[in-house]
């Protein structure tokens, strides 16, 4: 198991957003989390990358108990993520966004940063090349030099993925990567997720687009009102009457 979450719970004021959720993500798989709006998917994701600290439960990544770590240590342990409502660094160019993603692997001393010795200049050139390659990987190579606030919505979604990949994560959490995309763009994301998985990166995917989920996932966890409703292979889950009811809603009488 790459990631194990045991008995995770999180409350906000009086509302239990996530209650006693168990999750085990196997290395090399795409593991999806679905559920109706407000079911606690994003909260769960925020727990899994340290943005929220759980009220109860623990998170083990690889061999390491990462519960209570600050977010940047989740990242250095190897967990990356993207955001449902875009968190692009709009004060940087497209390429710099991806280069910033490589911080963990390019960190240099303060003195070197100030004086820019040849060693750093070389490392910077290398980082630039690698970021360029990642942009090619997500299909954004032609935007590399642009300011990031000039990109169309779909491209920004892919830029977030490229930036997260630059941190070379073992586990990538994708929060609704297809939300707001048209069918063509959604298909491209579908492809992209597969190619990420092929690179050996484990993916946890939160997504509303059922078609996408069914196509790319090996396992699906269904959340409803902060609780686990069902878990299993996509085909099995999609036939589960409980899931259909929760997801589509009862036909009000």
């Amino acid at each position: 198991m790459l990631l194990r979450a045991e008995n995770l719970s999180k409350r906000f004021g009086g509302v239990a957003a996530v209650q006693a959720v168990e999750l085990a993500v196997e290395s090399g798989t795409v593991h999806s989390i679905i559920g109706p709006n407000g079911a606690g998917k994003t909260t769960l994701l925020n727990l899994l990358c340290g943005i929220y600290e759980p009220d109860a439960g623990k998170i083990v990544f690889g061999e390491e108990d990462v519960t209570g770590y600050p977010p940047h240590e989740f990242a250095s342990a190897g967990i990356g993520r993207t955001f449902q409502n875009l968190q692009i660094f709009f004060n940087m160019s497209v390429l710099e966004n991806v280069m910033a993603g490589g911080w963990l692997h390019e960190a240099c001393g303060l003195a070197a940063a100030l004086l820019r010795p040849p060693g750093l200049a070389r490392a910077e050139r290398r980082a630039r090349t690698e970021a360029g390659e990642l942009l090619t990987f997500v299909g954004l190579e032609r935007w590399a030099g642009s300011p990031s606030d000039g990109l169309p919505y779909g491209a920004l979604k892919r830029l977030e993925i490229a930036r997260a990949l630059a941190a070379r994560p073992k586990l990538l959490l994708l929060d609704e990567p297809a939300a707001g995309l048209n069918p063509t763009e959604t298909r491209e994301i579908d492809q992209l997720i597969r190619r990420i998985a092929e690179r050996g990166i484990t993916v946890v995917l939160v997504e509303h687009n059922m078609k996408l989920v069914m196509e790319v996932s090996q396992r699906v966890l269904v959340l409803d009102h902060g609780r686990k409703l069902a878990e299993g292979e996509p085909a099995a889950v999609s036939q589960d009457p409980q899931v259909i009811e929760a997801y589509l809603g009862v036909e009000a009488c």
Partner: protein
Amino acid sequence: MSRKGFAVLALVVALLPLALTNNYTYEVAIVVGLNAIVCVGLNLLIGYAGQISLGHAGFFGLGAYGSAILAARYGWPPFAALASAVAGVSFIAWVIGKPVLRLKGHYLAMATLGLGIIVAVVLATEDQITGGPDGMAVPPLGVASFVLQGEKLWYWIVGAVLLATVWLALNIIDSPHGRAWRALHGSEVAAGAIGIDPARHKLTAFVLSAASAALAGALTAHYSGFITPAKASFLHSIELVTMVVFGGMASTFGAVVGAAILTTLPQLLTALKEYEMVTLGAVMMLTMIFMPQGLVPTLEKALAAARRKPE
């Protein structure tokens, strides 16, 4: 852009003396340079790392008085005093930055403002050491019998230090550290998600900006031979922030331009006598209302747009 900009700045520094007719104009140019050194550093904190400080005059004052007191009261060689003062202020910034930078927005503004005021009050009250509100005399910089004096010599010293500061700033902005700052400014949560420790990077920006303020402060003290606590006051802090924001946040050359304009403007406004304050206030408000990004970024954008059109 930044390489070209640096070359232009170096050229301006090299050629400006042709336009400087007397020691007074040299004086104004030197003060512009000293303010620009602070602003370039402060811009790392405000413009790039996105953290406000309303107390940087405190670091300026500590640098000035630190160096002045070590040299005048304890007889240290001035260069050693200057270096120790800058190092000492950096250390102080490092120690207080840790808890203070956990605060955000207006709370951070209040905390830094409070720090600045504390420094100013201490400097004005401990008159046995600091000379009190009327200030103290500061020995000139120099080694043994060789003393650095005269506006023309100081012009080149300050010009060189400014160019060095700008060069270092441009380097770090375009390094992983600079990207980490900008990432924090762009989205702190996303920065965390790619492994950037907010506390650590805010602290480096804070310490570097404090160091540049301390350096400019110490240079000011030794250059003018006299220093008063007014340089550590809240109003001076505000002046510094205004220069950065006016020139344009997240633009090193903006910081230099902001310092240049807001330092020379009062000199030009002297003819207005009692209307000087009203004019200064109105200029500040109008610029910020109509160019909220600051002067240089707004002009850059306009220029880029104009260049795009003819094609």
